[in-house]
């Protein structure tokens, strides 16, 4: 039997049992209309008595008003604001007695967890319990995303700190479930009109805005806009991975990274993309990071005179971006620095170092799909640093993947992985055909693969016969989208 069926049975039974007294009601109402209320004559009150009564009344009003104001203040004035952020963001305002005055959802997820619950007048503890319970029930808090931020705002710093500690402890207890343990970040906050504007703009609580601001003040690579879409679990992971110490934020528990592929798989994806094996690389580092609001494994390593930097999608393992550029600290094994025996990636000999040895460069700076690019690059200016410029038109070896363009590293800039791209070679051939210039005659050749509005684009630049060429090639079809040709003055 369902709840609805029971409700129906009860409704039916009481409806049938209710006696019909309508006639009696209507009759009595009719009789009431004819009733005459007898007005008794008022006795005259002396003016002295009136004054005494007036003064007494004023006194009572004064006392009553003060008491009433205090009662009103205790019951209806916001004493503390407690905000909860997971991805749902909700803000609870309570009075002095910690009775809930209002619970406001700051985003759609917040509305979902509040549902039709009305917390007005209930204890803060009850509201907190119900909201966290709803987050658990709706899967916003789980073993793959276990972090919650609780922020407390009270004019009295001591009260703020006490409430912060108490609520964090209560929430932590609630998150000690059979399947996972929670990670609770807690902080006290204070009004900040500028930050409040940002919080309102992005539909988050002031607490989350303060946390994001702290992170970007410690790691300036990030922007507020980029981090605002991240969940508290992601922000927690980000700050831990980047070793960011958040002032005034108390942290209990460990943020879950179970939603992600793990460092091992991310590393394997990067090595596979680079065509390298574990033994080929040195100076390896890996950390979780955010790129345009996407959590990635940022992997860096060196090999064969190049520095590699990868962003691997933390959930799918797809290579989102990679960068490969000559390692300025690289010293070829057979050409050690003067007075020092160098390993390929040890030490720095900026003035004497040799550019990457062609023979040791398996994929010398080309994009992954530039399969036809010759591997055997000859150092254009051996004995100088890769940065040492040669002027355009000098005797470079186009296609050698070294630095044909003076002033430019032959560098695979940030490349975005896209399934539908035709490949750099096809794009380059289209440009060669369009410009009527053989690839061998180009100098300063540079190709960047980018994603614009979800479409793969190749941006190709080169110089030839005193002109600068800039092309945009459709990565899906290999057709020329845009080109510019300017005299290189």
């Amino acid at each position, binding site marked *: 039997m369902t709840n609805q069926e029971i409700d129906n049975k009860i409704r039916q039974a009481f409806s049938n049992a209710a006696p019909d007294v309508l006639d009696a009601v209507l*009759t009595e109402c009719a009789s009431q209309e004819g009733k005459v209320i007898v007005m008794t004559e008022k006795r005259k009150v002396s003016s002295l008595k009136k004054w005494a009564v007036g003064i007494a009344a004023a006194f009572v009003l004064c006392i009553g008003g003060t008491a009433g104001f205090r009662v009103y203040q205790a019951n209806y004035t916001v004493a503390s604001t407690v905000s909860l952020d997971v991805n749902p963001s909700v803000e609870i305002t309570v009075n002095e007695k910690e009775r809930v005055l209002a619970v406001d959802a700051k985003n759609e997820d917040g509305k979902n967890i509040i549902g039709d619950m009305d917390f007005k007048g209930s204890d803060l503890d009850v509201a907190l319990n119900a909201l966290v319970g709803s987050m658990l029930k709706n899967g916003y808090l789980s073993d793959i995303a276990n972090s919650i931020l609780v922020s407390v705002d009270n004019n009295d710093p001591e009260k703020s700190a006490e409430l912060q500690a108490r609520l964090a402890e209560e929430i932590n207890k609630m998150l000690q479930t059979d399947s996972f343990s929670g990670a609770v970040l807690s902080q006290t906050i204070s009004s900040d009109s500028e930050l409040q504007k940002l919080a309102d703009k992005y539909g988050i609580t002031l607490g989350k805005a303060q946390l994001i601001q702290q992170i970007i003040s410690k790691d300036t690579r990030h922007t507020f806009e980029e981090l605002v879409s991240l969940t508290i679990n992601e922000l927690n992971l980000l700050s831990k991975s980047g070793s960011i110490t958040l002032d005034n934020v108390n942290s209990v528990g460990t943020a879950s990274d179970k939603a992600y592929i793990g460092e091992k798989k991310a590393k394997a994806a990067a090595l596979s993309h680079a065509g390298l094996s574990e033994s080929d690389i040195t100076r390896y580092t890996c950390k979780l990071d955010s790129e345009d609001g996407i959590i990635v494994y940022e992997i860096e390593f060196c090999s064969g005179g190049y520095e590699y930097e990868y962003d691997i999608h933390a959930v799918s393992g797809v290579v989102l971006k990679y960068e490969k550029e000559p390692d300025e600290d690289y010293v070829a094994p057979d050409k050690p620095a003067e007075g020092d025996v160098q390993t390929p990636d040890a030490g720095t000999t900026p003035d004497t170092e040799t550019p990457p040895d062609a023979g040791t460069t398996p994929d010398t700076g080309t994009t992954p799909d530039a399969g036809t690019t010759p591997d055997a690059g000859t150092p254009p200016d051996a004995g100088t640093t890769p940065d040492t410029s040669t002027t355009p038109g000098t005797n470079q070896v186009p296609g050698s993947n070294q630095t044909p363009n003076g002033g430019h590293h032959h560098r695979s800039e940030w490349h975005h992985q896209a399934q539908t791209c035709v490949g750099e070679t096809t794009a380059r051939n289209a440009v060669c055909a369009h410009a009527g210039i053989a690839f061998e005659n180009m100098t300063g050749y540079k190709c960047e693969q980018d994603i614009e509005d979800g479409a793969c684009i190749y941006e190709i630049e080169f110089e030839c016969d005193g002109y600068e060429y800039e092309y945009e090639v459709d990565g899906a079809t290999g057709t020329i989208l845009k080109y510019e040709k300017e005299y290189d003055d």
Partner: protein
Amino acid sequence: MILHLPDEQESGTNSNAGVLDSYISRIVTGDKEALALLYRATSASVYGFALSILKNTQDAEDVLHDSYIAVYSSACTYRSAGKPMAWVLTITRNLCLQKLRERKKMADVLPENWETGLESRREISEDDKLVISECMNRLSDMERQIIALHAIAGFKHREIADLLHIPLSTVLSKYNRAIKKLKKYLGKESKSDDKSGN
């Protein structure tokens, strides 16, 4: 007095709130047809709620009567906030509490007679008597009031919390406990009915 009235009871609080509001507005002008319409739409909720508090059919009937008299005489004080049913049931609750106070003063009156009061009424089916009996016997006072407000008046839990001045969490837990008990006992009855039917 003969009035043509729709034979329906209010089943929810929000769906008919506008209609009930309009009845009360008309009652202010002395419109008895509007009072009759309000009565038809809400009397089961009023009686069920009163019986759940008083556990005395005669007292519940008195309160049912007095509630509509009070509605008629104080309709001008009603300020619409989209909750006409809450207003009516607040009147009912206050009258019930008044009755309970009177009972305390008159200790010689048998306080709870719902069983004998229902027994004598042959127009009520045995099934309905059984359901009322389970509600009266199995549930605590507060559970019974919550169930009456939810099942008969169609109140949401937060509206019940407001009316009874108790925390929402209490309403939720007591409602769940009550419905569990009723499932157990009413479920047993319906199973035994099925078996005897077979």
